[in-house]
């Protein structure tokens, strides 16, 4: 796919890669890969996990050397970069996992290790000078926080701005954003996209890596698609669209998004009902919610709107300050996660690696963990029963691993998430709560997880899906509840599904409904 770049036709590229190849034992990570980045150009870089994006980043960062090919930066050709060259030529990274010191303030983070010092033998930090240096940087990224703010008090988007300010402070000419929005809610994503536009206006190039294709659609001047380590194609600005990117990424069309309007499902009976629940985060805001059998209820809202807190209370991890919960019409008192699990209420938590699975245990051990007594005789674990369950789930869910004895930590994100799902599917779920179930997961695995959620709903399970991914919420849910500052601001039925409506409710405004007597409570 050849494209004619219309944005900066006459400028020499800041960076160009030519026929770059990199192999690891047994794997060709990158092959015959070429691309160019011009000053002030925003490149969207997409590809499934394992397509070679990380390798490419490592080469640009000087962490790893290509086996062959040329990397030309600012007119100077290299066989490969070293870290100093990468930094020295103005290539800056903002990683998905932020590298900030949460206990220090913004200014200290931006100039960490390069603080201006006062004269004298004590080498004290010159705070006044530091603030002076930070102020213009914060202004450039459009920060709405002060240089003295402790990083821990900032939202994720604000922390990302700190990272970008840090990149600008070393006079970056190319900023590489590695999945910056994957954990950002809608409104904050907007801010970040604005920052990208700001960088572009200053003539700084941006490589924007994201799984959220609609964001790429909005900011990229050009899209580079990687597949299996090779260039699958390049899309010029007018060619960029969602379906085309997906087609190039996976080499075929994918019906990832179910289309609305298929025969409306008859809503099942109410499985879980929460009435006037108060969480410790919003102790003065009661939340009520009904979850029916056989439906996927999407729970949208900004980060910090209280969705995860609600899920944690329903699952018994956090204390319920007030209100009551019924399961199948009967009052239910969930005092711990163990109670929730005993009643068939399961949670796939937001943070897979910290709370979803035990990385050091095998797949089989993770799957049996919540239901270990059922895999034991006289309190002794029966390895046979454990392996049988795991094998069955591995097959059902298509977990890609050499064996069920494989350590879970070695699996890809998508497969780890499947293990989390498998441990609950091996039991008998009544209510399944999934908190950001597809975060950091590649498109193929995403589709599989959507399929699993739908299969659960079809089997009569009540599914509650918390998601900050707009496409996902709209594409997957049967109904969408939106939270705003600790309360449900509205519930949308299918006919009212739109990004606009979700966003309006998320910021506490009234949605535009087809029927006047719509779902707003």
């Amino acid at each position, binding site marked *: 796919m050849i494209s004619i770049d219309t944005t900066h036709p006459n400028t020499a590229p800041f960076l160009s890669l030519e026929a770059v190849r990199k*192999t690891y*034992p047994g794997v060709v990570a990158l092959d015959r890969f070429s691309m160019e980045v011009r000053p002030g150009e925003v490149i969207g870089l997409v590809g499934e996990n394992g397509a070679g994006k990380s390798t490419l980043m490592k080469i640009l960062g000087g962490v790893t050397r290509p086996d062959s090919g040329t990397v030309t930066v600012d007119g100077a050709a290299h066989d490969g970069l070293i870290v100093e060259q990468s930094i020295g030529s103005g290539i800056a990274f903002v990683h998905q996992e932020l590298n900030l010191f949460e206990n220090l303030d913004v200014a200290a983070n931006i100039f960490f290790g390069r603080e201006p010092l006062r004269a004298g033998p004590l080498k004290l930090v010159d705070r006044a000078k530091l603030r002076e240096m930070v102020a213009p940087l914060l202004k450039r990224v459009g920060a709405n926080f002060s240089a003295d703010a402790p990083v821990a008090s900032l939202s994720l988007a604000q922390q990302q701005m700190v990272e970008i300010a840090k990149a600008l402070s070393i006079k970056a000419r190319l900023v590489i954003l590695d999945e910056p929005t994957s954990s950002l809610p809608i409104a904050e994503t907007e801010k970040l996209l604005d920052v990208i536009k700001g960088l572009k206006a200053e003539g700084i190039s941006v490589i924007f890596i994201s799984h959220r294709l609609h964001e790429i659609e909005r900011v990229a001047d050009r899209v580079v698609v990687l597949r299996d380590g090779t260039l699958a194609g390049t899309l010029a600005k007018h060619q960029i669209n969602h379906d085309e990117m997906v087609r190039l990424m996976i080499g075929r069309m994918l019906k990832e998004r179910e289309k609305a309007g298929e025969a409306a499902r008859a809503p099942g009976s109410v499985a879980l009902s929460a009435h006037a629940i108060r969480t410790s985060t919003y102790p003065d805001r009661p939340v009520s919610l009904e979850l029916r059998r056989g439906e996927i209820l999407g729970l949208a809202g900004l980060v910090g709107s209280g969705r995860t807190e609600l899920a944690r209370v329903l699952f018994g*991890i956090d204390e319920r300050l007030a209100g009551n919960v019924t399961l199948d019409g009967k009052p239910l008192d969930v005092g711990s*996660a163990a109670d929730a699990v005993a009643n068939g209420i399961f949670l796939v938590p937001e943070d897979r690696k910290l709370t979803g699975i*035990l990385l050091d245990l095998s797949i089989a*051990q993770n799957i049996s963990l919540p239901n270990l007594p059922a895999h*034991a005789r006289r309190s*002794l*674990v029966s390895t046979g029963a454990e392996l049988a369950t795991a094998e069955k789930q591995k097959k059902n869910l298509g977990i890609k691993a050499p064996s069920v004895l494989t350590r879970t930590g070695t699996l890809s994100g998508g497969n780890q998430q499947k293990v989390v799902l498998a441990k609950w599917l091996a039991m008998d779920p009544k209510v399944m709560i999934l908190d950001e179930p597809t975060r950091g997961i590649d498109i193929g695995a995403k589709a599989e997880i959507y399929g699993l959620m739908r299969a659960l709903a079809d089997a009569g399970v009540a599914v509650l899906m918390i998601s900050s991914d707009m496409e996902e919420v709209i594409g997957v849910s049967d109904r969408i509840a939106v939270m705003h500052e600790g309360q449900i601001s509205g519930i949308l039925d299918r006919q009212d599904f739109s990004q606009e409506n979700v966003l309006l409710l998320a910021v506490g405004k009234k949605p535009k409904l087809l029927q006047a007597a719509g779902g707003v409570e």
Partner: protein
Amino acid sequence: MSKKDLGLLILILVVGAVVTAINPRFLSTINLANTSNLVALFGILSIGQAFVIITGGIELSVGSLIALLGTLFIDFIAVREVNWPLAFVLILVLGAIIGFVHGWLITRLKLQPFVVTLCGLLIYRGVARFYTADGTAGFAFGQNFPDLEFLTAGRSGGVPNSFIALIVISIVMWVVLHRSVFGRYLYAIGKNEEAAKYSGIRTDRVVTSAYVICGVLTALSAIYFAMYTRSISPASHGQFYELYAIAAAVLGGFSLRGGEGSLVGVILGTVLLQELQNLVNLLGIPSSLNFAVMGGVILIGVLVDQQWGVFRARRRMMEATRQNVAGAPAE
């Protein structure tokens, strides 16, 4: 038996062979019986500690507990004339209660294990000294408990009964740690307590149980130690025993971060520590150097283990690179 345990066993055998070569008395019946008795006493203690360490916790109060419970036990049977099986059970129950309180403070009130058990270390030592008015608890002249003495300090066919007790306890605890649902929970919590909780495990109960087990085993060893020394001065009895127990677990491959270690490992760790003590005596090394020898060996052991891990990782990487280099020109 894991590779780590095997390495430890080989180390024990090598040290034993060297000591025997220098001083053949190492293998004399009397020395072996004495040493195995000490292995048993410290072994029971260390198994208890291991259960706490596997959850990522630590129990620093066991030395003081041995003083307090030992004092109480001797006081019960020698002064208050409680019949000994009852006193025996009472002491175990007391150990369980103290373990439970520690567990409760740690899981419910969210105090750090180090802090809770450090306070225990100070409190129990103080109480024990107060209880005897800083005197000595011991038996009156001619006072006899033939059954109890046989069970604790006696021998069957030359093997100390305490050692037989250790073997029975080890087997039971091996099953509990390595085969039971509870044992799996312990490892899971040690690896990642949050994730275990999110899997519906009642982590508070499991962790508290670990402290209860530690309390009971400590109480049991307190009785053995009391019957071994037959007189207790609470100011010094059992001092630093918590460190022996922790050292045994660390030597045996336990990580203080939790989630790692085996029962065989902690037993072998105890054996090695006692062998070193024995070595100091048999080789005529000044006994004041006792702790220094022990500390040195533990440090070297941990260092070798860690460096071996680094070496293996590096070798793997080198091999991978070599394959890579060899494979590249072919294409």
